[in-house]
Structure formats: C-alpha cells, structure tokens
C-alpha cells in the first residue's frame, strides 16, 4: 500500500508532463503552419507585383534551407537517442504526421503523377507497393524495433539474431549484413541454427 501511492503519483505526474509537452508541440506546429501560410501568401503577392519567377524559386529554396538549418542548430544534441528518435518523447500523433509527410513526399508529387499518366493501371503497383510495404514494416518490424530500443533495422537484426546481446560483437555485425546478401545465408541451415538464440 505504501509503495503503491507514490507510484500512482509518479504516473499521474508523467501523464501531466506528457500532456504539457503535447500542448507545447501543438503550439509549435500551429505557429509553423501559420508562418508557412504567411510566407506563401507573401510570395504570391510578390509574384503579382512582378517579382521574377526565378527569384521566387531561389527565395523559397533558401528560406527552406535556412529554416531547417535553424531548427537543426536550435535543437542540436550529441545524445544518440535524442539525435535519432528525439528521446522517444514525440507523441504518436506527431510521429504519425511525420510518417504521413514522408509518405506524401516529393516523390509522390513530382514523379508519381507522371508515372501514373505514362503507365496507367500498371503504375498503381507503386502506390500499392509502398503502402503495402509500410504494412509489413508496421506489423513485423516497427513494434520490435521499438521494444528492442534500436534505431535502424540492421541494429535490430543484430541484437535479435546476433546472440551477443548488445549487437556489437562480430557475429552480430555479420548478421546485420544478411538482408543484403540473401544467397549467402539462405542455403546454410547450420549457420542459421548457430546464429539463432536457442531459447
């Protein structure tokens, strides 16, 4: 009973801080969206006023790079976990938005429309391919990547199948290479058995 009360308090505290963080992040995102809209509007006005197209293009490119560089400098870190996964603090909603932004990336806008126009029905394989592939990642890899606290798929495979535990031993490194070299590991069941944990 004595141990349960502080645990509950700590849990409530953590939840409150998560909510605060969520609100702050929402504020940042709103500000960013607002400023981006204003920037686009300003560019539109400038175009109407007769600013050359090329300058507009350069301005857009330059502003984007400066913005990203600023964000990078402001939130610089030498912590690996902070660098790769933002300390695992980003709420699911924002992570989902980032994933969606990746999904609807420049490739979709620039090349997919043209590919569809050129190839018709067959080009829909691209759409199905990368969304369906995302399903496989979400079901088979992502949860375990998170559970194993790894940053990349090779890291995860090294820890899961390496047998060394920390994934830095020689066997782990060799395992991490096997997705890129299927012919060398497929026909060797003895090697497979040796490198699979016997639990």
């Amino acid at each position, binding site marked *: 009973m004595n141990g349960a009360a502080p645990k509950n308090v700590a849990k409530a505290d953590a939840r409150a801080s998560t909510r605060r963080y969520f609100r702050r992040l929402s504020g940042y995102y709103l500000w960013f969206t607002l400023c981006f809209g204003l920037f686009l509007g300003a560019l539109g006005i400038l175009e109407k006023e007769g600013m050359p197209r090329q300058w507009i293009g350069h301005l857009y490119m330059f502003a984007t790079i400066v913005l990203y560089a600023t964000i990078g400098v402001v939130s610089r870190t030498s912590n690996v976990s902070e660098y790769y996964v933002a300390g695992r603090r980003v709420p699911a909603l924002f992570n989902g938005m980032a994933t969606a932004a990746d999904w609807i990336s420049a490739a979709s806008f620039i090349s997919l429309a043209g590919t569809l126009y050129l190839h018709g029905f067959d080009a829909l394989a691209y*759409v*199905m391919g990368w*969304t*369906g592939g995302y*399903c496989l990642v979400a*079901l088979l890899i992502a949860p375990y990547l998170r559970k194993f606290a790894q940053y990349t798929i090779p890291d995860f495979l090294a820890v899961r199948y390496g047998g060394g535990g920390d994934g830095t031993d020689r066997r782990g490194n060799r395992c991490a290479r096997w997705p890129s070299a299927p012919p060398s590991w497929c026909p060797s069941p003895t090697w497979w058995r040796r490198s699979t944990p016997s639990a």
Partner: protein
Amino acid sequence: MPTDTALPDHDPDLRRARIVAERTRHWRRARRLVAGLLVLWLATSFCTVFFARDLAHLSVFGWPLSFYLAAQGASLIYLAIIGGYAWRMRVLDREYTRRLGDAA
C-alpha cells in the same frame, strides 16, 4: 480467478511461472493478430491484382472493382490494417500489463 488467492504469492518460482504464462499468452494473441492481418494483407495486395480480370466486371462507384482497389481501396485497407493493429495491440498490451501487475 478465485483459486489464485489461495496460492502463496511470495513463492518466487510460482510467480515466475505465472509471469512466463502471461507472457506466452500475450505473445500468442499478438502473433495470431499479426497472422490474421497478414492474411488480409496478402488477399488485398496479391489476390486483387492476380484476379484483376475476373473482378473487372464488378463495379464500385462506377469503376471496375480491380481498378478501384488498386487505386484507392487497397490503400484504405492497408490503413485499416495498420489502424486495427495499433488499436488491438493497445488493448492487448494494457491487459497484459494489468494481468502482470496482478500476477507479480
């Protein structure tokens, strides 16, 4: 489980056995969920394309079914698969944590 209260909770072997049992149960349910969703995934991505000609005479919103599925339906089904997985795993994880708290 009324019988559990009669058992001595401080026995470490028993506790470990219970935790292992909970873990096995959770893992089995998660695996079954993933297997089911993967079957749905295979049906969506392979069967609708492989049997596209047979499905073409059915129409959805004025489009042939196979075309609709490839252009929009499959993506929506994939989205539903991911959403369903996330939702169901949340439920399973919560239940697992709760039962583990009971067991430990």
